[in-house]
């Protein structure tokens, strides 16, 4: 047992690494269900073939209205489209009583961030996919994970627990904003984006 010390040292390190890289993320994030299942693909694909901004609208004053209100759903879903249980629930629990659907928003930024979709989409000519990935093509809503400490959606930090951005980038932390702003020679001032 000449290498007992080294063995113990390495096993201590190994246990810590497993705890840190595997167990910790599981403990840090809480998965919350979405209130309804939703397929973006069913809306953007055939036959509906809607574009992003047919539901995620821009108001005249330049504000982005974000997740559509239930009245917008009601335009098509006043009565169940199809026979699924989800459709039935949508109509009975939300559309008819005009109750807003409590969606969990993957990309919800904190209250102190000001992000104008209008500026980025209309002036900056960014595509929705550049930040939101292929969310618009998804068949179903992936689980929403919330950080137990900070209360942020996991999408802000990005899927990689190390914080090293994946390619294509999926994280939504400030350094990603700043990187793009620096690249495109856009404002770097704090209150340009903080409210």
């Amino acid at each position, binding site marked *: 047992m000449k290498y007992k010390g080294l063995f*113990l040292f390495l096993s201590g390190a*190994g246990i810590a690494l497993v705890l*840190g890289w595997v167990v*910790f993320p599981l403990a840090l994030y809480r998965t919350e269900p979405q209130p309804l299942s939703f397929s973006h693909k069913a809306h953007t694909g055939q036959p509906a073939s809607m574009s992003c901004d047919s539901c995620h609208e821009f108001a005249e004053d330049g504000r982005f209205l974000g997740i559509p*209100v239930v009245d917008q759903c009601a335009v098509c879903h006043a009565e169940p489209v199809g026979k699924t249980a989800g459709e039935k629930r949508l109509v009975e629990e939300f559309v008819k009583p005009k109750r807003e659907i409590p969606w969990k928003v993957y990309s919800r930024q904190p209250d102190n961030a000001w992000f104008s979709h209008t500026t980025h989409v209309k002036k900056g000519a960014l595509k929705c996919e550049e930040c939101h990935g292929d969310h618009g093509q998804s068949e179903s809503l992936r689980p929403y994970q919330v950080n137990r400490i900070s209360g*942020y959606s996991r999408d802000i930090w990005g899927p990689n627990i190390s914080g090293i951005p994946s390619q294509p980038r999926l994280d939504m932390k400030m350094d990603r904003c700043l990187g793009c702003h620096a690249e495109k020679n856009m404002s770097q001032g704090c209150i340009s984006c903080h409210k």
Partner: protein
Amino acid sequence: MSNRITRRNLFQLAGGSALGMLLSPVPWKLLDDSAIWTQNWSLTPKLPRGPISIRNSHCTLCPGGCGIAARCVGGHPYGLRGTGQHPVNSGFLCAVGLAGHHYAYHPLRIDAPCRFTGREEDSRLIPASLEALLSEMSGSRNSTGGSRPGGSIAILDSRPGRSVSQAYQEMLSRIPGSVYLTPPSNEESTLEEIRQISGVDGWGFDFENTHTILSFGAPLLDGWGTPGRIARRFFHRSPKELILIQAESYRSRTAVQASRWLALRPGTEAVLAMALAQVLLQDGLCPTDIPVRVADWQEFKELAFRLPIAAAAEKTGLPVSAIVEVAHALAGSSSIVLGGCDPGGGPLDRTASRAIACLNILLGNIDQPGGIISRREAPGVGLHSPRGLPLSDVADHSIRWMIIDSAASGYSFPLSLLQHKLMHDKGRIVCLSPYMTPIAAYADYIIPTPAHLESLEEVGTPPGAPASSWGLSAPLLPRTAQSVDPLDLIPKMSEALGFPGGPNTSRQELLKQRAAAIMAARQGTVFHPGKGAAVKVSTRTGTGDFWNLLLEGGCWVDDPTPPRPATRFTMLGKEQPWRERLTARLEQPGPSPDQLVLMPVGWKNATSSGSVPPMISKLFQESDCRSLAGTVLAHPDTAASAGISSEGKVRLQTRSGEMEADLKLDPALMPGVLHGAVGPCVNQAQTLRQAPAEGLLALCPVEEDGSWRITPAQMKKA
């Protein structure tokens, strides 16, 4: 041996784990997340989310009638501003109105009927029910018969002229011996005297076209009338020149902005007015038709010359030259002489108001452009005149039930005024109020009504306005379940008092009828807040259309009223009671120089509305804008004469009692005068159980002439 775990082995394991941890995301992510947690924790509220919209309405906190535009998130107001181009307030609000949407969350909000167990300091707040009130009312019917002369049932209406006021008056008209009361009015005191002198109702100030204003302490630039209207006349790029002469004992906010400030000794307003009248008569500055139109010209002239100018100058503390100059300045152009006083001090005494009204007549200001012009009432007022009996004119100890409606703060008049009118022992006060105010705390029953912006209300003609106006205050916030609409309470009270079958129309119906009446008269214009412009009522077709526009913040304004044919005046009254009163005032010896006088001071916007929004505490506690209630200001010499050299706690004593106050030294004050700041109580730590108190106003007894603004006082170190 080698299989034993030694201490050294444990160190090795721990060392490895520590290294492993450092190479894992744990410490770094925890550091980051804990920092984000501090930015995001639940101790800071989350922001509301939703579509942004603008909703227009009217402010009903005071009679000013300002149009408000509310920025809303998800339909919920989060910021108010004046409606742009609004004909009444020109897009401006006062500081209190700006936070009007916060009233619903007032920490002193009353959510159920309640009462205090007594008037003592340690009395408790207990629940009271509407049923208990109604049964006590019906019980009292047997003992008093509901027909005591002098008014056994009184309704004190802080906002006369509303449709609810009509309903009150209708109810009272069927109850013998009842009386409809209005609280002392500050801003229209001059107009009220002119009404009595001329026997004609309906007057307004034509500030927009006037050249010279002589104001006897009216806080013109501190919330008078509709602040936006006054501000527009004074400050907005306007080609018309304006001279303001402010006669007041200290350099108030208004005096600072005035072209000339006359440091007038308190209580000598009537003397100055009569001295000015004397100069006008002496120098032949009255228009020629005035002597003909005044019935008692000779008597008045005699009275005006009673006190030599030099004597008047001494009494008022002004140089003779100043009096002469002011008289000439007033006569030389269109002018208005305006009586008033600091809102904390209530109305100017009636003798002074009468003298000021007479001065306007001598100057020929009545029915002249830029003077005091005719103003017809808005259509649809109906059977009852909005004017009630002033509270001070009711016989003492005659009222069994005093019902106080809306916006009564307890800082606009001393509670002793109310107290003296109540019957001994049996007198009861019912206060309809959304918040706990000193007056509510004093009541026997507090009935919660909807808070500001929670119910459909109306706004009538603001004080001193040149033309009548009418608009709606559409609710911007949902009503709370427990609040009671006064209109629903009236028939119940009427029935309890033995007169069933009271008015039974809904609030909306009542207001719709009024709107229809205005529409039917086809006069005036209606302002469209969305367009920022007004259109003639006669061009609008449907009543429904008109109603909807009013609900969206529209405002009807009457056309200018044509001048009345030469009005005749009786300056000193039919039986000439004013000759004696004015004489007494002119011959009254001046106060002795070492006699301190206490003058209550306040801020109209804060003392006139039932309560103040919590945010107002910033102005009182954290800036130099306003003095906290309970502060007494004095010139250092004044304090020195009382043996006090530094700021701090002092005791004030008047014939009404004694009280502790915070002395602040202010060399800007007239020596011998103490300014006692009254209301509002802005302390955020207030709870319903510890009701706000009346404060220094309790030291100010109501004089025979109905005023309480000058009280001899003593001050000593606490």
